[in-house]
């Protein structure tokens, strides 16, 4: 269950190869790759700065991945989030989930990124022609979270966990 918060870029192919090598029973790997846009709320974005809360960030991500593991049958989950200054088109976040079948991997991947966006202490600051501004939290992110809270409780009953 690797979780990394780093300034450096990452190589998607290398990360996925490592995830897959770990287990020949993997039948599905679903990934979400977040990248920096050059436009937000009508302003062009020259640079994005990512701040986080060291210590709490790793704890929060670990809790989110644990919750995903309790809800779905997944083998592993990888979360990489970059911090510091980033430019448009840069990779900012990767969530990759492996499982035997695609359904669990798709659901767990979406769950992890939805929770990350509302529970993990990262903040974005955009540099626009009008100056720097902190990005406001989106209502749509909270709505995405609410969907999981309605959908997944009580936890689905699993016939077996072989």
């Amino acid at each position, binding site marked *: 269950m690797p979780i990394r918060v780093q300034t450096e870029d990452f190589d998607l192919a290398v990360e996925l190869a490592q995830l897959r090598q770990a287990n020949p029973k993997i039948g599905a790997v679903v990934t979400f790759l977040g990248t920096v846009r050059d436009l937000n709320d009508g302003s062009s974005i020259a640079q994005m700065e990512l701040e*986080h809360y060291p210590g*709490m960030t790793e704890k929060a991500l670990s809790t989110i991945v644990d919750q995903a593991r309790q809800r779905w049958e997944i083998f592993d989950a990888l979360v990489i989030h970059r911090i510091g200054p980033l430019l448009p088109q840069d990779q900012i976040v990767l969530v990759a989930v492996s499982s035997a079948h695609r359904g669990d991997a798709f659901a767990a991947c979406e769950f992890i990124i939805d929770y990350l*966006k*509302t529970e993990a202490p990262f*903040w974005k600051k955009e540099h626009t022609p009008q100056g720097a501004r*902190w990005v406001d*939290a989106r209502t749509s992110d909270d709505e995405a979270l609410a969907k999981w809270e309605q959908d997944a409780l009580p936890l689905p009953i699993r016939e077996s966990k072989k």
Partner: protein
Amino acid sequence: MKIQLRFFASIREALNLSQETLEVPAAVATVGDVRAYLRARGGVWAEVLADGRALRMAFNQELASADTVLADNGEVAFFPPVTGG
């Protein structure tokens, strides 16, 4: 009781402060009490930590509510709603 304070993102910028060690009186027993205690400093503190303002709080690096009880040498953090991903 002694606590560590941490501030992040727009809160940190507004206060021009990222951390502080604070000795609080016995009456300050919860995270909400800390918020009110700091707000009483007035000025930018009253504005940034005002009731009703969208603000998240953490105690010992876990999300906290106003009722979360403090412990000696605990870490209380204030920050805006998160926007990563």
